[in-house]
């Protein structure tokens, strides 16, 4: 089905189910309860999960398959966002042309950067991509102000032409992004007992695109092209002496991952039509590397998991402050309560980065294959109980090392 093998169809179905049921799955706690702050099922955050999931899926096609570690992919995301906002300013508030332009512009941009950077490999390649991305960031911040609106960021105004739409909305305000009349911000709220579930149009647009992006990545992974990319990672000498030219393969992977980043940037602007230079900063490029490694480099599902994890920490852990902590431990004697709050304090709130950092270190040291390897080990533990060891000739190849070049 769909040109996929059975286990891949299952995986795709699982991803689709998780994406479409996310408003339920991410809101397990009733409104107003103590635990409600751990709910992540609100539109803004769910959109971010999915958009960064798309970004990481694309990044993994480059890094996971070829081993080329790019430190500049946020530049393509930023370029995608700017393109989309320009489309909203000039053409119309429909998200489709905006997203298409984001992908095209990011693709062209990555073709140029990739062409130059891929002349080197290893650390030199990484540094070149980093340099290009920082250059783009600085240009967006200063010289290119007419295009990027510098520090303020690019925003919609009432004076934008929007030749296929209206400059102003019905009520005289700036119009909102939409898909053939469905406003991206529109949300249907469902009250079920103490629970509140929110179904946001924008989120579902993102989710559908995520499933499509995942399907595309799956096809690439299973294709001869994907096989060649893995061969590049493993042994370029053998590749060359087998009559294959590594450069066009790596460049194609670079451009494809750049287009994924552009798509993510375009979606980001479609959900909230503004674009700033900080989206291109090196920290943003580093984040997608962390997502991919944390989830499991070179696996299909890993990057999506990694993106979800990091965004969850960033948005949920960062909101736990001392008051919340005191609330949790209120039942304990005062001295103990203060001690516990004192101990937990550095790991939550503004300290969420520390928790994430420790978690990242633990994963890299104990689970080099990321969260996916953790999952596989667990699955193996359970399987061992039902079935004696399988046929040796059918055993699967070891997980590829997660950092190459």
């Amino acid at each position: 089905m769909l040109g996929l093998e059975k286990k891949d169809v299952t995986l795709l179905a699982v991803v689709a189910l998780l994406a479409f049921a996310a408003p339920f799955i991410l809101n397990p706690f009733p409104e107003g309860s103590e635990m409600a702050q751990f709910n992540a099922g609100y539109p803004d955050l769910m959109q971010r999960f999915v958009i960064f999931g798309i970004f990481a899926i694309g990044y993994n096609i480059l890094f996971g398959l070829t081993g080329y570690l790019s430190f500049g992919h946020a530049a393509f995301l930023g370029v995608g966002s700017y393109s989309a906002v320009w489309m909203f300013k000039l053409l119309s508030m429909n998200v489709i042309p905006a997203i298409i332009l984001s992908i095209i512009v990011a693709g062209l941009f990555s073709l140029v950067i990739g062409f130059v950077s891929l002349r080197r490999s290893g650390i030199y390649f990484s540094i070149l991509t980093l340099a290009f991305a920082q250059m783009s960031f600085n240009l967006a911040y200063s010289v290119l102000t007419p295009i990027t609106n510098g520090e303020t960021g690019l925003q919609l105004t009432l004076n934008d032409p929007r030749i296929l739409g209206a400059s102003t909305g019905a009520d005289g305000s700036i119009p909102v992004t939409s898909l053939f009349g469905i406003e991206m911000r529109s949300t249907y709220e469902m009250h079920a007992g103490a629970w509140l579930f929110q179904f946001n149009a924008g989120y579902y647009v993102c989710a559908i695109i995520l499933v499509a992006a995942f399907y595309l990545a799956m096809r690439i992974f299973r294709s001869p092209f994907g096989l060649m990319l893995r061969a590049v990672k493993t042994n370029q000498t053998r590749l060359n002496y087998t009559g294959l030219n590594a450069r066009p393969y790596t460049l194609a992977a670079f451009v494809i991952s750049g287009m994924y980043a552009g798509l993510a940037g375009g979606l980001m602007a479609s959900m909230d039509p503004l674009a700033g230079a900080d989206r291109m900063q090196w920290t943003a490029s580093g984040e997608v590397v962390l997502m991919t490694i944390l989830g499991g480099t070179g696996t299909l599902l890993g990057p999506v998991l990694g993106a979800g994890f990091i965004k969850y920490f960033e948005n949920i852990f960062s909101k736990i402050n001392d008051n919340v902590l005191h609330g949790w431990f209120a039942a304990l004697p005062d001295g103990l309560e203060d001690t516990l709050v004192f101990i937990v304090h550095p790991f939550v709130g503004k300290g969420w980065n520390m928790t994430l950092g420790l978690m990242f270190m633990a994963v890299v040291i104990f689970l080099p294959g990321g969260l996916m390897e953790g999952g596989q080990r667990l699955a193996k533990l359970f399987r061992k109980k039902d079935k004696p060891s399988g046929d040796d000739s059918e055993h699967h190849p070891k997980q590829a090392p997660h950092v190459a070049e």
Partner: protein
Amino acid sequence: MGILEVKGVNKRFGGLQALSNVNLSVQENTVHAIIGPNGAGKSTLLNCLVGKLIPDTGSVMFDGQSVLGRKPHEINQMGISRVFQTPEIFGDLTVLENVLIPCFARRDGAFRLHAFETVSAEKEMMDKAMQMLEDVNMVSKRHMHSASMSRGDKRRLEMAMCLVQEPRLLLLDEPTAGMARADTNNTIDLLKEIKEKRDITMAIIEHDMHVVFSLADRITVLAQGTPLVEDTPENIKGHPKVREAYLGEAA
């Protein structure tokens, strides 16, 4: 005129003259062995043929075309495959995937964006790879992580990867080093069979004289970067210069 013509090739590494005025002519559909003591320049000579090294002077012609100045993948696409002295395989991939890659390279050339086909659905390529694995007795190992195999198996795999490309010229740098006796004999049989079944020319570097004398039609003896003699195996066996420079030194 041979399929491979090497004329007046010199190669220096700093102060070391690794190859000096090497002339070599390999005739089509023969097995040409190159023997010589360690450091004689045998691997260096192969490196000059496949584009890994560029000779300082001289010419290398394959089938009437110069290989000099071409990139390794272009030379391979001309029909030259090479087995390395230390096995070069795709260690992170399975044995089957290792053999599939050269199949695709032969069919699709140096690059093709075949991102929407599925490897497992490419029946023709799969059959070809499986047939090759059968020929080298590795079918049962097809799902193995190739880096975890023994050195002998890696060599056998590398040879399969080269053979499946159906090259016109196969260069083998010590193909049986690190193999058990039985595997060495299997390799000899395999190469003999290939030679009979297909139009293929082989240049083989080998220290194991049993292998050399079982396969070679002609032998070139290289010492200190210079070809000493070139003759048939029978004549080489009794050649005094060879005994002194090579067989003598090996004893």
